[in-house]
């Protein structure tokens, strides 16, 4: 099934390449704006030191890359990172607060995560909103998303492969403290959610993946899943037990292939089970 699909896709690709060489190569040649802004696609590239100010200007970061930005309290800072199917992504932001002597009170900082369609994503765990006391120097926010699914009903809000936006801002602060210099560091990591979350189906294309680089395992999470091990193991077990069950129905003395010494028996005086 999969092979057919890949073959089909390859055929389509070949035909499309022949038909429209310009269009196909343009896809590769066009530099992805945010990726170039963040210093290229390789993992060795320097970490971005600026954040975007909106969804359209969100700075692209890679999984495991630490990005930083200087900002004024009250700014809305945007980043985007990729997540593929089967991954459980965690975003972490550390804010270095303005000098305590300039501040007038406690401030609530908030980290929001949106998917590639700008839909708010729930944090399954982590502290995405935190109140920093008047004397605190840093505040750390985390948000762990639900595992990314391969496919979801169009009515659902489930996380899907593609880009995820991070928005960091101060949600509540004394008015006098707006505009003070602060510094933010963010990092997005992802771990495999395990075979229990390996779903079927496939999206036509990842959500808004123009600017972010594909995760190592690809958007669809690769073909391997521990479901293969379970299913193959189950098949093998069934085969073994099948042979076992068949053997059980044989006569105990014939069960293991032990043949009776037939020559010693006079003809006609066989075992009672000889008729079998």
């Amino acid at each position, binding site marked *: *099934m999969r092979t057919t699909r890949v073959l089909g*896709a*390859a055929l*389509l*690709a*070949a035909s*499309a390449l022949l*038909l*429209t060489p310009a269009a196909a190569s343009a*896809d*590769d040649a066009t530099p992805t704006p945010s990726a*170039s*802004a963040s210093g290229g696609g390789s993992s060795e590239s320097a970490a971005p030191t*600026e954040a975007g100010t*909106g969804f*359209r*200007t969100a700075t692209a970061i890679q999984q495991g890359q630490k990005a930083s930005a200087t*900002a*004024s309290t*009250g*700014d809305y800072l945007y980043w985007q990172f990729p997540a593929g199917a089967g991954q459980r992504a965690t975003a972490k932001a550390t804010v270095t607060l303005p000098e305590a002597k300039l501040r007038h009170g406690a401030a609530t900082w908030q980290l929001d995560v949106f998917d590639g*369609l*700008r*839909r708010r994503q729930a944090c399954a765990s982590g502290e995405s909103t935190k109140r920093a006391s008047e004397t605190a120097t840093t505040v750390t926010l985390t948000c762990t998303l639900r595992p990314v699914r*391969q496919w979801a009903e*169009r*009515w659902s809000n489930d996380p899907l492969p593609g880009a995820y936006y991070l928005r960091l801002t101060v949600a*509540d602060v004394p008015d006098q403290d*707006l*505009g*003070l210099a602060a510094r933010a560091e963010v990092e997005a990591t992802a771990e495999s959610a395990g*075979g229990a979350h*390996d*779903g*079927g*189906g496939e999206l*036509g294309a990842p*959500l*808004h993946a*123009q*600017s972010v680089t*594909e995760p190592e395992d690809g958007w669809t999470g690769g*073909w391997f899943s521990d*479901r293969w091990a*379970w299913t193959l*193991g*189950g098949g093998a*077990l*069934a*085969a*073994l*037990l*099948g*042979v076992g*069950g*068949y*053997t059980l*129905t*044989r006569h105990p003395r014939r069960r293991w292939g032990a043949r009776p010494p037939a020559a010693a028996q006079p003809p006609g005086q066989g075992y009672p089970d000889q*008729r079998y």
Partner: protein
Amino acid sequence: MIITRRLVAGAFAALATLAAGAPPALAADEAAEKAPKVELVLDVSGSMNARDIDGQSRMDAAKQAFGEVIDATPEVVQLGIRTLGSEYPGEDKVIGCRDSKQLYPVGQVDRVTAKASVAHLKPTGWTPIGYALRAADKDLGNDGGTRRIVLITDGEDSCGKPDPCDVARELAAEGTHLTVDTLGLAHDDKTRRQLSCIAEATGGTYTSVQHTDQLSGRIKQLVKRAADPVEAPPRAVQGATGQCTNAPVLGAGIFTDREKFAEHRWYRVKVNPGQELRAAVSVSADRAVNPDYGVRLRAVSEKGQELVRGSDAGSGRTDVLSTGLRYPVAKQDKKSDGSRPDPETVCLEVANSFSAPDSVKREPGLPVELAVDLVKAPDNASDVAAFGLGRGWVLLGVLGGVGLLAGLIWGWLARWRVAVWRAN
């Protein structure tokens, strides 16, 4: 593997383009190849003499920062400088409130002349911020590129009319991608409120400057930000307010519009069979709004049936409230005469539940950004599990049990068959 997939994706994109045929009426395809433009607007009013920035006068701090900024301006950015309150020292408000001068025209920066133009400035007159903003907007022109005004001031508008915050919102509403960033050198409530309001109205930022290095660092950051490439230049569009039938037809791209409180805006998208419509909408809160608000995006068929919706609600401080949806259209066979099946028209309805205190202006409406994308859509889940594979101990038990049973039955059948054969 990844390369293959990219190729395939590219090919799909190419095919989708082919399949879409002629581009629809409105496609945001104009690339913003125009040079980004930034104008620094510096307050040179009398109060800039105050010495409260690291022991320096505000004016000296600003001059020093300007020197550093001019040196650090990226080549691609066209920079201009405008002053306000630099000429007229007198008391006549009418003259004082028209005192704004373009010190250095917007263009490729000549570092020496640009610096020299700033060096001779002396704190002098009034603070006509609203007037200066309008003038700065004219200086920047409008060729479709990124436009940014960086306003550095130490006080609120001393002229009152026009209100700089209204001016900022008015300029932003012209749909010319203007952002105003403000930096305050004084820290009183009135200044902060006014500068925050100007920044909020245009999607800019407000910074309260405490140190010289913070001033230069921030201006450099803002100038550099203008040079950052953006994903795609948005295109202004006006959605229908009443119903879908006369709504503008959009293709893939990013569009901007304005939507008043409690207003609905309609757009249409033609989706070919086998394509998936993806739409995301953001409604910006560019003014003081009441604490609870919401936004809703609906995809509705031409007959008025709701296909799918996205919504979000929030409360408290926010810059934008957004939501999105996706709607795949199933593949269809070609028509009997061999022509392509007709595309399905999907109506998109954007609604918001923002509200504001009575004192807040209703016009122009809130900025709306609508991102529309059309992708190839094999949107089908053959099975909710990966490749239909199973997992867990129950699976093992069931498979093992079935195997055992099958073995037993096969064994008994074999015995019975042999017995029958012997009997015959």
